[in-house]
């Protein structure tokens, strides 16, 4: 009761100004307090941490499956999240570490370098597609580009395993094939999601920077050589 009074008091002055005294105003104006919102917050706040983490992991895993079998679906776009790209980025950067032969302090810049390339590359591609008239939002595009790095991360893991066996021309050939295949897969997967958001005649203009982006990452993966 008192709450309703307090809520309607801010509006008390208005009724004098805008409505003439001859016309009676009935009913009461009360500000909705959004109690339903409060209930929702409590419902996810009270659940155990394990459930929250598992729910997020399941969402991330679901998107990984969508990248593995890219078909024109909007699941990746509808509920985007950046956990997957972060996970992939960190994994790739860790795998690319310990590469160059000379000194120990090379590990630091390499990790940061991979991070910077992936995130700034994604941002530039997103800006480019928006400027070309795309309908996709900023974070949706980041999400798609990040998730489509997964084939290249898998290729990196494979390359590292192959390099354990030796680094002759045979291993180079195997690595070349694996990296080329995963690069093509990444590009194809990301265009399957991104191309729909562009006007029909400009798809090539959007695909080209994506191609360059995965090409650069693929080169970093291919030319990785372990410390001696």
């Amino acid at each position: 009761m008192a709450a309703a009074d307090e809520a309607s008091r801010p509006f008390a002055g208005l009724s004098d100004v805008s409505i003439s005294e001859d016309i009676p105003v009935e009913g009461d104006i009360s500000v909705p307090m959004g109690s339903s919102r409060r209930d929702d917050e409590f419902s996810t706040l009270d659940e155990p941490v394990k459930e929250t983490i598992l729910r997020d992991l399941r969402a991330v895993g679901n998107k990984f499956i969508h990248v593995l079998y890219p078909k024109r679906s909007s699941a990746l776009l509808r509920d985007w999240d950046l956990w997957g790209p972060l996970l992939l980025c960190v994994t790739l950067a860790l795998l690319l570490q310990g590469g160059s032969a000379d000194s120990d302090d090379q590990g630091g810049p390499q990790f940061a370098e991979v991070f910077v390339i992936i995130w700034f590359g994604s941002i530039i591609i997103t800006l480019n597609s928006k400027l070309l008239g795309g309908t996709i939002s900023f974070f949706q595009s980041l999400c798609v580009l990040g998730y489509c790095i997964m084939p290249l991360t898998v290729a990196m893991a494979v390359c590292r395993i192959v390099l354990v066996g030796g680094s002759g021309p045979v291993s180079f050939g195997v690595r070349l094939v694996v990296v080329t295949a995963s690069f093509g897969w990444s590009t194809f997967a990301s265009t399957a999601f991104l191309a729909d958001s562009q006007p029909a005649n400009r798809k090539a203009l959007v695909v080209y920077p994506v191609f360059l982006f995965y090409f650069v990452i693929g080169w970093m993966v291919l030319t990785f050589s372990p410390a001696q």
Partner: protein
Amino acid sequence: MSAGSGSRNTNTEPWGSFDDNLIQGGGSAVIDMENMDDTSGSSFEDMGEMHQRMKEEEEVAAEAAATEDDNTDDGEFLGMKGIKGQLGRQVADEVWQAGKRQASRAFNLYANIDILRPYFDVEPVQVRSRLIESMIPVRMINFPQKIAGELYGPLMLVFTLVAILLHGMKTSGTVIREGTLMGTAIGTCFGYWLGVSSFIYFLAYLVNAQITMLQTLSLLGYGLFGHCVVLLVTYNIHFHFLFYVLWLLLGGLSTLRMVAALLSRTVGHTPRLLLCGTLSLLHMLFLLYLHFAYHKIVEGLLDSLEGPNMAPMQRVARDVPELTLNATLRIQGVQLLLDSFST
């Protein structure tokens, strides 16, 4: 009195008519010019001011009332938590709204990418034709040539050049300093494109040439197409003579194209010489620099691998003319050669 009745009657207007203290004296038909604000163009602005003032007064009154109630009804019903929680929520809501308003205003002002949108309005066919035209000089210099003002093509060419540089550095077989190489490649290419464009625009401004900043960016960006092609070929086929031929041919063609476009927009012999001479010098030297700066990395690798006692043999190895198809073969060939010398 007529004045009194007049003031009472004016309140029947739906938009809340004139108050006594605003413009008109009660019931008088004459508008007192003393009270009229000079800057107000119409009476609607005054109405807007009045409403705003009233709303502000209400908000202040509401806050005062809320704090008053807070003080008086503190412990009375719902406990302290009830009223304070509600007030806290309202205040937090206000703060959030104000912050959001300010942030969105700042964002719309500074991060508005729509100002760049017209420069990206191209079709793939146009980009392709402009790429090819950038290698074909046009001989008409008496009438200003048309220079496309777009940024998509130049931007993509700069990124392609960065990728080619990285490819060149990797095929030279070294991973000595990956971090700085990547940063150097990006810094070099973007620095050249932006820096030289600005410099040429500055010179054009000095000599009063008819060219805008966007056009210099576009011209120089498309001129990098020749560089991309030359570097792509010569990073894979390490043949110095081939590089010099391509440098003169492709580099020269793209330079001539840019020079002709600038000539058509400049008047006077000295300005033309200055502008076009500077541009051709910088453009050709940049290609030379890109080739040799990243070529030396191979020789640097040989230095570090073999050590000081191998210096004379290293010179012999470098002079051996070879036509290689990729660097792994070349390095293996050099290794074999050095092994044969040492045994």
